[in-house]
């Protein structure tokens, strides 16, 4: 009696197999789509920095973070906007055909990394000069050296097109840098969205 009962149950369960398989397949399918959407949302090993400031100290800190991150094997993007844009002008390049406001901005803002001033204790340039000589003495890399190092390490630089336009800067007067892109907020946000670290400096 017992034996036949067990046999019956076995048969019943075997009849359920196609249904069970179908359920399983469905579940696996659902898991697969979930996994795909999750892996899309997982940030890459990347740092996105917004360099808004045009001060020597803050830009230097940005470059130290950028090069350090690159050394640690991270992909690094720096987005230069507003007061950060003039740092990327090339001192040796001259452009013509700027309007009055463009000429004003060109004259008043630093032309390149070597003309950038401290945010504090500038004291008409004396503080900045002192800081620069101290950096040299203490073997801290200058902003110009940091730019070179960043290029060497493959740090990508994006320049805000709107800031360029606003201040009347032209593409031809910007530095020669291997990974230079002119872009807007959407390009930066795309990078920032899948970055592990995002900083605004």
């Amino acid at each position: 009696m017992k034996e036949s009962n067990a046999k019956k149950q076995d048969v019943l369960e075997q009849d359920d197999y196609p249904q069970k398989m179908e359920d399983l397949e469905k579940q696996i399918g659902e898991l697969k789509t979930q996994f795909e959407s999750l892996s899309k949302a997982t940030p890459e090993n990347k740092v996105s920095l917004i360099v808004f400031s045009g001060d020597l100290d803050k830009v230097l800190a940005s470059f130290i973070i950028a090069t350090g991150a690159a050394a640690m094997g991270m992909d690094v993007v720096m987005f230069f906007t507003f007061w950060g844009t003039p740092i990327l002008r090339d001192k040796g390049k001259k452009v013509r055909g700027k309007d009055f406001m463009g000429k004003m901005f060109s004259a008043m803002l630093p032309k390149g990394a070597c003309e950038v001033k401290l945010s504090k204790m500038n004291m008409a340039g004396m503080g900045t000069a002192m800081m620069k000589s101290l950096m040299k003495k203490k073997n801290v890399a200058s902003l110009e050296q940091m730019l070179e190092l960043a290029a060497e390490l493959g740090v990508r630089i994006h320049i805000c097109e709107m800031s360029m336009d606003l201040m009347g800067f032209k593409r031809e007067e910007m530095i020669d840098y291997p990974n230079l892109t002119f872009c807007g907020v959407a390009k930066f946000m795309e990078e920032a969205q899948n970055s592990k670290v995002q900083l605004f400096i």
Partner: protein
Amino acid sequence: MGEEITVDKVMDLKGLACPMPVVKVSKGIKEVEIGQVIEAVTTDPGSLADFPAWARTSGNEILKTDQEGGVIRFYIKRKA
């Protein structure tokens, strides 16, 4: 105990300030084979925290750290 570490490459990073020691060592380690060891010599006190952090994230191993009169020696095995 008396286990000797065979050094395949020595990097003199004395006098360099942040971030240079880490930047240089990350470049230098790519010049040895996986399994080989580099000895990095620094004078930057910050590197005591920075080198282990760099090693953890880059997947390399610090076998030994020696400190003597402001000079720090790291023995780093390339693993990745």
